[in-house]
């Protein structure tokens, strides 16, 4: 996993795709069991299609959010801190879909100690349809600057940072 400093990054840059491949019912079941999510639309085909009139069992939204988080975290590397994130589900993903994440730099901002990088995040299926999208803001060190503080503490100046929603 590559580490970056603020100066390395330019608006518009797209990071390597995070490819999760084809998500089978077994993958969905593994996630549902790991988090004890017993919602039947994720593992009971008859219930999903006949009772809830869905096209198939669904890939969990809660699983997809972790993929976007991994995408944001890994794109900027271990010296960054994923500070804020917002995402929305636009479309269902069903068993058998192949999913990959795309992260693109939307904005760069500076505060007195660190830089902040805004990423646009998308989860896309094999038909190039975006099912989940959002944005994240991560703190990242300047070249030769101090490391990002951990645990992260909000400061007044961070409240002035732009978000994609506020523009």
């Amino acid at each position, binding site marked *: *996993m590559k580490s970056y400093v603020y100066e390395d990054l330019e608006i518009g840059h797209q990071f390597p795709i995070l490819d*999760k491949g084809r998500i089978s019912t077994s*993958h969905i079941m*593994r*996630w549902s*069991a*790991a*988090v*004890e999510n*017993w*919602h*039947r*639309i994720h593992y*009971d085909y008859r*219930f999903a299609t006949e*009772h*809830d009139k869905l096209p198939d069992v669904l890939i969990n*939204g*809660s*699983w997809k*959010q*972790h*993929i976007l*988080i*991994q995408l944001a*975290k*890994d794109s900027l590397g*271990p*010296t960054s*801190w*994923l*500070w*804020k*994130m*917002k*995402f*929305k*589900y636009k479309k269902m993903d069903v068993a058998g879909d192949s999913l990959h994440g795309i992260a693109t730099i939307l904005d760069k901002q500076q505060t007195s100690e660190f830089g902040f990088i805004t990423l646009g995040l998308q989860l896309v299926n094999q038909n190039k349809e975006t099912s989940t999208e*959002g944005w994240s803001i991560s703190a990242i060190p300047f070249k030769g600057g101090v*490391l*990002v503080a*951990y*645990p*992260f*503490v*909000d400061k007044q100046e961070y409240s002035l940072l732009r978000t994609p929603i506020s523009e």
Partner: protein
Amino acid sequence: MTKEKFDEADCKKYIGIKGESKVAHMPLEKDSLRRFVQAIMDTDPLYFDEEYAKSTFFGNIVATPLYPVHAFRTPADGSDRLNALQTDPDLDGTDSMSGAYSSLPKIESPFKRLLNGGNEITFYRALEIGEVCVSTPKYKNVELKNGKSGPMLLVTIETEYKTQSDKLLLINTQTLIWR
């Protein structure tokens, strides 16, 4: 009991209600974390390699950023949520008030189907092995809307996650859509 009608006045009754803090019945364990990261297919050594973790600003193995949301499992001596399915085959298996939200009063409405409408999250710290997660939820907003497929109820829950020693982990604002 399910309410047959639900209007704006019903929505307002819930807005601002804060639930009691809930304490996860178990601390974060390496094996729970292993299962979790395998399920999201995240091979970051931060989640299992102690030597690597020491080289990062975390200093220890930590959970994934949003793990605390899933830290509230059913204890061995807790009631079995699947029991209800044995007597009512139409139940969908969800318990919207389970987990981190269980201390909020259940919204009694005619809406039956639940969808996740999205989240906004601010992260401050990661949960470490051996730490216990504590959540405190509140109804930030409850409103009725008309969607393409008919009326729906949008419920926004803001939940603060801390460790048992009061270290802030994250704040998660989740929108639930009931149809």
